[in-house]
């Protein structure tokens, strides 16, 4: 109930929700590891050999160094987006897991934080798989930079999870997720600088690209792993944008779920 004290919410109750998801996932760790490692390998093959053969240098670095941080961010974005939409919606609507949890001392905010932190965990896991694969492939020029990129990727994954929850909070059927993937996930995949420099696109696309959190995330992660200079003020600006978007998205999702469940 809305009147019920809802803060502080990152606590053992939200952690209990996180642990529930982790427990279920533990059984799937084999297939999950497999896809998380194979996915970037397939991309590396296709783009590294396909595009890398024609494109020598991008933005002052080898195409391999350019594309691997993009794939780290893409891994974080895709896994966190999928978990916070399709998977959360299944637990919310199909399995009624949320109903069962909301009859316990866990509050709605705690439940959402548990789901969000789990989706972010999966996103970070995907990103870390790419760091490992990319390092072995020889595409991570700065191992220290890659280490520093981990907390940055975690923030990115949190942001993508929060944004996914906004879509889920508005979902009345599964159909909305088709739009979510077409108008949110795919543009971030194509226009945020994963495979091509953002600067190559026309102005309108560039404006859209810089509104997307993915573009800001890549702008920080890429210089880190490639070991090139990164302006700390620019980095702080990018991260602040991602963080602000995360908080805003979570607040919108919380409001919307509250209205739906208790209205």
């Amino acid at each position, binding site marked *: *109930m*809305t*009147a*019920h*004290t809802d803060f502080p919410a990152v606590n*053992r*109750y939200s952690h*209990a*929700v996180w*642990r*529930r998801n982790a*427990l*279920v996932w533990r059984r799937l760790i084999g297939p999950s590891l497999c896809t998380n490692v194979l996915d970037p390998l397939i991309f590396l093959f296709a783009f590294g050999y396909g595009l890398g053969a024609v494109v020598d240098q991008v933005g002052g670095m080898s195409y391999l160094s350019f594309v691997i941080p993009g794939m780290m961010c893409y891994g974080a974005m895709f896994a966190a987006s999928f978990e916070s939409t399709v998977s959360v919606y299944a637990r919310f609507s199909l*399995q*009624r*897991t949320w*109903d*069962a*949890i*909301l*009859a*316990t*001392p*866990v*509050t709605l905010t705690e439940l959402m934080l548990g789901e969000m932190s789990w989706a972010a965990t999966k996103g970070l896991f995907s990103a870390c798989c790419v760091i490992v694969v990319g390092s072995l492939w020889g595409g991570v020029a700065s191992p220290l930079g890659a280490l520093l990129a981990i907390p940055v990727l975690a923030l990115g994954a949190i942001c993508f999870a929060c944004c996914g929850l906004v879509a889920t909070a508005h979902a009345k059927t599964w159909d909305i997720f088709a739009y979510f993937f077409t108008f949110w996930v795919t543009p971030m995949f194509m226009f945020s600088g994963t495979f091509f420099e953002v600067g190559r696109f026309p102005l309108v696309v560039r404006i859209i690209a810089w509104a997307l959190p993915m573009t800001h995330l890549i702008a920080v992660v890429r210089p880190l792993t490639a070991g090139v200079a990164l302006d700390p003020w620019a980095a702080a600006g990018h991260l602040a944008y991602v963080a602000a978007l995360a908080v805003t998205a979570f607040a919108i999702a919380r409001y919307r779920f509250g209205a739906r*469940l*208790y209205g």
Partner: protein
Amino acid sequence: MEGRAAAATPVIEIRELEKRYGDVHAVRGVSFAIAAGTCVGLLGPNGAGKTTIMRMIMALAEPSAGQLRLFGEAPEALGRTMRERVGLVPQEDNLDPDLSVRQNLEVYGRYFGRSAGDLATRVPRLLDFMQLAERSGAKVMQLSGGMKRRLIIARALIADPELIILDEPTTGLDPQARVLIWRRLLDLKREGKTLLLTTHYMDEAQRLCDRIIIIDGGRILDEGSPQDLIDRHVRGHVFEIAKPLPAGFTEEGLERNDVGDAVLYYANDPAEVTRRLPADATFLRRHANLEDVFLRLTGHGLRQGG
């Protein structure tokens, strides 16, 4: 014996409770109180407002008007502790399909902030109590309907609640499964738990409930012990006579209730009916029960969605 002061505070007290969903007036001014250690049944046809009342008690829906007190306090004042003291057995199966029987209880216990050590002793005990120990490793999907209900009840007991709210605990189960659940609910009552349940089954209400509240259209029609209600609303004996009624049978002065293919007649003195019947007439005679009260008070037309 519990202290008198504790016994005097009702576990649930609601006054003029109302709930509107848009134009739908689901609950229209319901008042009742439930004393600690009793079992109270909410009886009513589909759409009567039973589930809505339970959801408001569980703070899963906000009342549109009226007052609601749990353990003598407003639910928002109790906050999280309120949920720790109330166990909910919902109508629909919302067990966690991704987890085993045992994990369902362990994971649920964590939502109550219970430690692993506490759950290590509590979960096996609950599995034994609900006769699920042999299936503790099974997936929820592999369970029969009766086992699922038992697991949902075990889950509601994970934090040892004082009040247990059960929304149609045995709907759709076979007779054996129902009897097992009834036995466990009576055990809980004996332990001093307070039970509030909804049901369509009159035998269930008669067997378990100290007091019954009959509701329809969001209002209370009557309340009392099963026997009180029978005494008040239907006469002691019921004769069920199939249609067409025997030739020469006159029903003037008899209380009747047409149930479609037969007519029910109520009488305190069985002779009142038998003397009107031809010697070869076939009929069914029984004692009046809650079902008769229920039909009497709520009518017997089919409900929307019923």
